[in-house]
């Protein structure tokens, strides 16, 4: 089973329900798209992430009503440093899509999606705790895994594996 090369042409990927709905709603929010290893990734303008999630959740054709996962990847030292990753699932249609928003490293912040899915609450707290990305509009943004007085954000790439000595 050799790997197929990834498809990045938006015109070819248009039939996917998530991308179709977003292009229909507002073309400017979609930065790029990639179909690789049977998974679709859409890069979204950071400012629009909450609206995009709400649009996809309420989409009539294929509602992406379930937030599977929300996490972050640190691309230190390149900028924009962080990518916040959202995995959505459509329970009625069993479709999946991955959304990504790029966040720069100087004062990382992005709008919270807790108003769209209450389940984002813990995930966003986890990303805040371990990466130091702030989620504006989060009802209770505090550390969840590490102790409250912990210094630094352990999953950042410039944080040593053995911790600071």
């Amino acid at each position, binding site marked *: *089973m*050799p*790997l197929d090369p*990834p498809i990045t042409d938006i015109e070819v990927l248009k039939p996917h329900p998530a991308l179709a709905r977003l292009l229909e709603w507002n073309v400017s929010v979609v930065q790029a798209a990639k179909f*690789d*290893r*049977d*998974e679709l*990734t859409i890069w979204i303008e950071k400012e629009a992430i909450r609206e995009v999630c709400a649009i996809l959740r309420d989409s009539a054709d294929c509602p992406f*009503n*379930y*937030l*599977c*996962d929300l*996490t972050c*990847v*640190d691309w230190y030292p390149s900028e924009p440093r962080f990518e916040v*990753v959202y*995995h959505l699932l459509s*329970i009625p249609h*069993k479709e*999946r899509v*991955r959304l990504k928003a790029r966040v720069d490293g100087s004062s990382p912040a992005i709008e919270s999606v807790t108003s769209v*899915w*209450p*389940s984002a*609450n*813990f995930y966003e707290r986890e990303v805040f705790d*371990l990466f130091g990305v702030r989620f504006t509009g989060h009802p209770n943004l505090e*550390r*969840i*895994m*590490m*102790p409250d007085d912990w210094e630094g954000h*352990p*999953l950042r790439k410039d*944080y040593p*594996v053995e911790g600071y000595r």
Partner: protein
Amino acid sequence: MTQFPATAAEPGQNRTGEDRTLVLNMGPQHPSTHGVLRLVLEIDGETIVRLKPEIGFLHTGIEKTCEAKFYQQVVPLTDRIDYLCPLTNNLAYCLAVEKLLGLEIPPKAQWMRVLMNELTRINSHLVWLGTHAMDLGAMTVFLYCFREREDVLRFFEMVSGQRMMTSYFRIGGLALEPPLGFFEKVKKFADRFPGNVDEYEGLLTGNPIFMMRTKGIARLSAEDAIALGAGGPTLRGSGVDIDLRRDAPYTGYENFKFKVPVRTEGDVFARYLCRVEELRESIGMVQQALAGMPEGPIKADAPKVVLPDREKMKTQMEALIYHFKIVTEGFAVPAGEVYQAIESPRGEMGYYIVSDGTAKPYRVHMRGPSFANLQALAKMCEGGLIADVVAAIGSIDIVLGDVDR
């Protein structure tokens, strides 16, 4: 001296107008929280006004550790996340890496994976059933469940040498051939087990005390379950019909026939019935896997990824070189990212792996089903009684290793 106001007290306040709720700590050392979970309960008499889970006591930074290991060295770490279903974690991780590599897995390895995965589900559900029933006061069920669980753990020991931290699935296939006599022993167990499930059900399903403790308790509507990200039997107990084994088949589940139990009541009893029904379906799948087990190799034909057999390594030079290279410098995985979700006993277990083309993963993220299910707990308990919190925690079947990672 304070004068009493003439009007009656507002709910939540006493007659002097003060807050009359009390904050009570449940855990982290509490036998019914199934691990080190701390719940901060705000109570008004016996009624829960607010419930706030505090987690992180078991956080070991596994995701960070993974970034410093070779791909094949991560497999034993995945055992330790959800220690009641180690093989499910092994499977999710291996499938994700195999998807990154584009590896084809031989049929026998796939069928063995299904067989072991369903035994793991039985193992996990038995621990849940025993402890859940014990929380609610039914001591006997615990002993019955652990009797059968012991048999399942013996099967794990037979194939991998370990009872719990098995690491039996490897990237590209299985660690070892199942030993002689293994299938016969599993067959014997599978023939006997439905009778054992009848025993558990005989003790619980019609039991008036058990029903009083579970029926109508800790209700969760389908909308809330989806919005709060609940998964597995917690979601299906609320009437949402989803099971990744059927809806997004992986590792050969499309060859198996099984029903997905769904209940619409959304209470503790509904989740109990879903899981007990899953025990029967799982043993059915074990029977199917035993009947149709194909012959052939148990590892993919990919010498750069899969360790060679011991015999070959000692007799063939190429095999020795590959062995040396895999062990000392790992194997490079093409750059890219995958999210592989599978149906663990608790819900959707997802592995998100980002590769930058080297021999170590750039980022590994585990989407733990217990972490997601725990968010639904507050919604279930608020407005209920303190005693029902214990039933609710049992019914979402959390493993704290999976929550905190």
